[in-house]
């Protein structure tokens, strides 16, 4: 195959210098994997790098460190490496052994062993680890992207690899953040009911809308009275502000009138733990007190709260997310006994009481569960509770059902501090101490992470497109200083707070970040096409991106001639996903994509892409174009893999400012087409997922053209089969096999397939002169009869009369009388055609055609028959010129025959 050596890079960043270990594994596809190299690259700040090469013979005997440019710091590295040689070797060996089939989180165990070894050694030298990550860098997407960028990247390969923004990751936050610095701020509060970030000052409260997330959103301001603020929340209709002033008092503000009133409790026996607004029909606000819940409703007439219901319980602390409408109340000595209430619009559901599992470290030491260690997570509409068990270093997973709470396994954690986010139904477990994040897709029963632990990436975007690359270069060179000096962006700093569901608030800098998934990187990290597609098809946020990736992955798999069984499974995934989404959805989306297509050049002029259907069509078209380019590039790019691998993401970071109109993604998708030719960096923004308007609007605006990444059969044809057919050289039987699998899958899911696909199948079969199979396909209705198919059969039947007949038969079965009669006449079967005309009353074919055919046969009897037929059955035929002409001809023929017979 000539595939490039796949390699893995293991990068470790310290405060003072960073170290990259590239684990090269010679492609073990080769019969004799001779040597495995471990290349260690170390740099200190902006100084020249030192390099040592660690060579390991394939039999596992270490031959030691070969080459080293001496520097003080590298001797430290060296020592670490020698100390951890066994682990490094193990990890390298594991990676090398599995390289052709790279899976997500492969060799995780070995990696963690190596990591902890290195960490321990490092600690001896009193050097604090800041950053550590691993990337298993395999995957066609990545390679393709790499290829596209190789031109530029090669120039800056050494530096880019060391650049913070150039590191590989699956999750990123994007510069600029939402800056919520207000002078005199007295802390930041997050109101998850309204998705507002609140920053109260002495007498004012500033609020920023976080959904849709826009970094330059201007805060709104309300005046409040002075006083301590324990928590603050806006009512769900936005008319009221509630501020908890103390453990016994909550103050309410009417925003318009400025009227206030307070609600307090008996401070001696109970204290207020918190409160939240609810959209439950029973009440408007719920106050959690140590003695239980108070459910209150607001009476606008009396401007006061009225107690509706109380639930008496002992409460140590509580957690609530508006997303789940679920409040969990902790009680007991260890705070591990929980009562739960869900205050949904349907009413109040009380969950059964349950206990969380806590491992004991020692017999007498009972850990107490803290509120920070329990998270409510909403994934795929299911509500889970995650609980950190610090002793066991596990994250226990509980799923809430209406009448039960079921523990569903546990996830390992590698850090004492853990943050939880949910982005697009993907669970992100931030291992804060290790500064990595692990992704889980809870949809599948498997609790295996989606990919290897990787750091969170900060993407910086230069202001303009044209100067993007230059800016990036400068940035990368100076970034070292930038990252270190600039305290404001301290990834996984101590001050980070993880907000529900996908926001990070850096309290120190008062920056608010939104977490994004890099679908491209995730899908590139696995070679298991079906499972990657399953993952992509479940994405709801960045739908167009997921869809585009799905299509291109499918197309690439075909072009790479992956085994039919594997491609078949991938196709199954796509078709199943489509049929499911299709059965739920209204026809809205489909109509949109099927409507008339305007040329991509017209797209930028469209004014409102969200509402107009034709733009969605063009988007699809533009999308397809880009995929086509991508796939071509991918094929060519395969053998040309170099060290520049890790640059691909830094290239991506040259994307333009995320703050853009919705039209942006249309522009950028378009730009991609140009880039295919010129390799200009202008179109890179297309790879940047955050641009999509749906990202922000998905939660608020349910109505949008693209609601699901599901791929319709039409799109399968346009973006997968048709390009694959164009690219494919040689024997078409592979593609036919894939098409058969697609048809099988579509048939099982009862998905209707566009005739184009059948036509393509026919073309492929005819190209291979496989007429026997064409016959079987047509007879067994594997190719569903349609006019297009019939016409293609006729076309393919030019060389094969049986196939042509199949086409004719199909026309007749479809009752396409006009075409059938026309073809019969053209083939000289004019008498048969006439019978058919009579039987089915098809009078749309011109009589002259029949007459000409009969005349050409030089049989006067036939000609007379045809003439008589029309005279008898076609009213007014007698007066046409055809009649007179042929009547005369017939008479001449008759007389000549009569003459000759005498």
């Amino acid at each position, binding site marked *: 195959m000539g595939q490039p050596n796949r390699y893995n890079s293991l990068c470790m960043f310290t405060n003072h210098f960073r170290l990259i270990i590239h684990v090269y594994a010679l492609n073990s596809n080769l019969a004799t994997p001779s040597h495995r190299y471990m290349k260690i690259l170390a740099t200190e700040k902006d100084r020249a790098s030192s390099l040592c090469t660690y060579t390991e013979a394939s039999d596992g005997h270490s031959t030691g460190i070969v080459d080293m440019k001496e520097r003080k710091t590298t001797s430290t590295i060296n020592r670490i490496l020698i100390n951890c040689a066994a682990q490094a070797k193990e990890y390298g060996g594991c990676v090398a052994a599995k390289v052709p089939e790279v899976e997500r989180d492969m060799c995780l165990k070995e990696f963690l062993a190596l990591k902890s070894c290195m960490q321990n050694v490092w600690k001896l030298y009193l050097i604090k680890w800041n950053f550590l990550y691993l990337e298993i860098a395999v995957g066609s997407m990545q390679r393709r992207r790499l290829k596209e960028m190789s031109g530029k990247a090669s120039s800056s390969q050494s530096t880019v690899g060391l650049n913070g923004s150039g590191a590989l990751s699956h999750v990123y936050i994007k510069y600029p953040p939402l800056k919520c610095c207000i002078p005199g701020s007295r802390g930041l509060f997050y109101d998850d009911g309204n998705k507002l970030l609140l920053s109260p000052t002495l007498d004012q409260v500033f609020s920023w809308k976080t959904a849709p997330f826009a970094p330059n959103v201007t805060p709104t301001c309300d005046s409040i009275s002075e006083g301590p603020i324990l928590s603050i929340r806006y009512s769900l209709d936005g008319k009221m502000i509630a501020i908890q002033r103390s453990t016994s008092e909550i103050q309410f503000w009417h925003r318009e009138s400025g009227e206030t009133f307070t609600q307090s409790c008996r401070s001696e026996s109970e204290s207020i733990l918190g409160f939240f607004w609810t959209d439950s029909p029973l009440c408007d606000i719920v106050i959690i007190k140590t003695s239980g819940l108070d459910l209150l409703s607001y009476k606008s007439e009396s401007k006061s709260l009225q107690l509706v219901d109380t639930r008496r319980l002992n409460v140590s602390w509580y957690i609530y997310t508006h997303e789940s409408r679920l409040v969990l109340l902790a009680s007991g000595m260890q705070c591990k006994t929980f009562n739960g209430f869900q205050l949904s619009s349907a009413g109040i559901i009380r969950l059964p009481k349950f206990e969380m599992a806590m491992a004991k470290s020692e017999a007498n030491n009972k850990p107490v569960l803290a509120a920070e260690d329990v998270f409510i997570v909403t994934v795929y509409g299911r509500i889970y509770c995650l609980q950190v068990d610090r002793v066991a270093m596990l994250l226990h997973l509980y799923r809430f059902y209406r009448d039960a709470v079921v523990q569903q396994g546990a996830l390992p954690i590698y850090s004492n501090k853990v943050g939880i986010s949910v982005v697009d139904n993907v669970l992100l477990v931030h291992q804060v101490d290790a500064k990595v994040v692990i992704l889980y897709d809870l949809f599948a029963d498997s609790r295996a992470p989606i990919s290897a632990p990787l750091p969170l990436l900060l993407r910086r975007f230069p202001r303009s497109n044209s100067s993007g690359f230059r800016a990036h270069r400068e940035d990368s060179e100076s970034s070292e200083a930038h990252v270190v000096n600039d305290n404001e962006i301290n990834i996984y700093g101590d001050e980070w707070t993880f907000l529900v569901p996908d926001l990070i608030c850096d309290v120190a800098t008062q920056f608010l970040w939104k977490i994004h998934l890099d679908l491209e990187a995730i899908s590139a990290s696995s070679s298991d096409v079906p499972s990657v597609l399953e993952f992509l098809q479940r994405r709801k946020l960045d739908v167009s991106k997921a869809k585009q990736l799905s299509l291109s992955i499918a197309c690439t798999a075909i072009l790479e001639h992956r085994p039919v069984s594997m491609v078949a499974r991938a196709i199954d995934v796509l078709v199943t996903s489509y049929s499911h989404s299709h059965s739920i959805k209204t026809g809205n989306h489909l109509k949109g994509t099927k409507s008339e297509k305007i040329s991509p050049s017209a797209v930028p002029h469209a004014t409102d892409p969200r509402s107009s259907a034709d733009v969605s069509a063009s988007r699809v078209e533009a999308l397809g174009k880009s995929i086509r380019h991508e796939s071509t590039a991918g094929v060519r790019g395969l053998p040309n893999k170099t060290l520049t691998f890790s640059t691909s993401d830094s290239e991506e970071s040259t994307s333009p400012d995320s703050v853009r109109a919705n039209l942006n993604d249309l522009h950028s998708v378009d730009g991609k087409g140009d880039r295919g030719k010129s390799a200009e960096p202008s179109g890179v923004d297309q790879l940047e997922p955050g641009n999509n308007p749906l990202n922000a609007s998905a939660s608020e605006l349910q109505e949008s053209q693209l609601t699901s990444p599901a791929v319709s059969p039409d799109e399968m044809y346009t973006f997968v089969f048709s390009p694959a057919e164009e690219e494919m050289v040689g*024997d078409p039987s592979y593609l036919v096999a894939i098409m*058969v699998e697609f048809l*099988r899958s579509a048939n099982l899911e009862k998905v209707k397939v566009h005739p184009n696909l059948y036509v393509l199948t026919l073309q492929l079969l005819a190209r291979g002169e496989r007429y*026997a199979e064409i016959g*079987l396909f*047509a*007879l*067994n209705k594997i190719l569903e009869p349609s006019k297009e198919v019939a016409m293609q059969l006729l076309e393919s039947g030019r060389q094969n009369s049986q196939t042509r007949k199949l086409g004719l*038969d199909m026309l007749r079965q479809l009752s396409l009388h006009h075409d059938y009669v026309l073809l019969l006449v053209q083939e000289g079967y004019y008498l048969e055609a006439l*019978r058919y005309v009579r039987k089915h009353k098809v009078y749309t074919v011109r009589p002259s055609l029949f007459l000409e055919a009969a005349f050409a046969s030089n049989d006067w009897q036939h000609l007379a028959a045809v003439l008589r037929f029309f005279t008898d059955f076609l009213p007014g035929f007698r007066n046409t010129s055809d009649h007179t002409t042929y009547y005369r001809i017939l008479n001449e023929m008759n007389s000549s025959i009569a003459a000759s017979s005498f």
Partner: protein
Amino acid sequence: MGLSSTATTIVEGIQFCVFDLRRGQHEGQELDKILFFFPADLPFSTQLSVIGLSEGLITFTRIFSPDAACEVIEAERHCHVFYEAEPDIWMVMIVEKNKEPEAIWRTDALRKVLKEVHFLFVMFHGSMRVLLDKEPGGGLARSHLYPFIMDYLSDFLVGKKLMLPSFRDCLKERGTVQMLTVGREAAIEVQSLVRVIESCAGIIPCYSLILFQDLLVSTTLSPDDTVNLFTYAVLRLTPNALSSGASSWSYLRKGTASHVATASILAQSGTVAEQFYGPGETSPVGDNGYHVIRPLHHDKWSRGRDGFLVTDIWGVEPGTWIPATPTVLLHQTGEKMYLCAHQHKSLTMIFLLPVSSILNGEQGVSTVKQQVVENAALKMLKVEEKLSKGWGGENAYHVSGYRYLLVDGDRNISRASPPGKVATLYKESLLSLNKLREEVDLDKSRARGDNDEHEKELEVSIRAKNNAWVIVRITRGKELYLVLEKANETLLYASDAVEKFSNSLVSAWEATSFDVTLIVKIFLVVSGYDQFVVVDLIMGDLIDDIKRCSGGGDDNIALGKLKTAH
């Protein structure tokens, strides 16, 4: 030659010979012409006189028709059916016309037998001409032909008689394939299986043929090769063929007779034959001069443990006990292919691999086999299950009230009423149909002779002596033969019944539908089964094409109902 008299009485009335006109042109060398003669123990003088007569007829008719000499000669007591298998190599079958009621043949059916044996011979041994050229003495060809044709004929033995296709078999068509009707879903599964098999061979081009019971499910071969392989598979490879002796409903086998017994009968007549045709006498090198493969030898195939069918017909690998993989020649490309057959329950899967593409011979074949077992086993299971679920048994294609035969000449496909149902017909009905088919055959061969590319449409309905309707409809390469015994008096009724049948058939066999409706049809219905006149009038009185057979019979003509469409 003392045994000759007893031998001829055993297989009476039938002679079968193959001879080459280019050989034995000189006085005294006439024996050289004979490549095969059955019964072999006839005195050479008799053999030569039979062949001499045939040769004379051929030479004579060639004067008038150089391209297509005579097809059949009807003598008073015999009927000679000719088939020119290869240029100047003729196969002739002589059947005796005796007073026996069963001795009524359709010559085209007999010719199809000759054709079939020749096609099968070529598939396994290559053309006779090549064999003759290889060894001009003719021993090679004779030693191949003799066992091959004898093995083939043994399939026709019922008891002590050779039962050649008679009028009772006129609702059958030799040389066609019977297909299983499958639903779309199953068809896609089958195709998916076909692709998997293909992919197992990698870059090597690979053909496949899939049968369910004795019915074809899928093929990637050309129509001719499909027919040949299908025929062979049904004769020797399908589960029914493997458990030989069990009753079968396929027309290719008479079924009830035990092959062991029948073979011995033929062998009895063959003892003398060995002297001339067998390898023993004419071979210059002695008994083992030719290693003659007998692909049609009975009871030689068996199902191996891995599901692959094995046979030692093709000998064993040198130095081992592993049976050699059979090879066949493709009719279309002339390519030599390895034949591998895999069987799972009722599903038989045959795949062909080109000998030239597989470099390391048997080892390469077994690699592919291994691949197939690994990759396709699950799919095969699934397909078998799906097909057996959808299969209606041997009477699946029975349409009650009708006895039919449907032939798609373009694709060499036919479908017929199950033999058990056909057997319930009156003899008169079958005889009428037989006669009608003879006429149609004649008409077709006439059209072939005219090189008329224009396919005719034809519809004939006749009333037999027993008041049964016998109907033929021919539309664009498709033929439908129908017998309606319980039909009403009127032609209108019969015509409606045909229409109904055509429509019901559309669902059963999708691609075939008959919508021949003559604008004006006048049927002249004849009461005598062997005399009929068809007047096919299109457009009133403008075109009349009157076919007259068997001497007018004016008295018997009765005017049937006049049916005017619309």
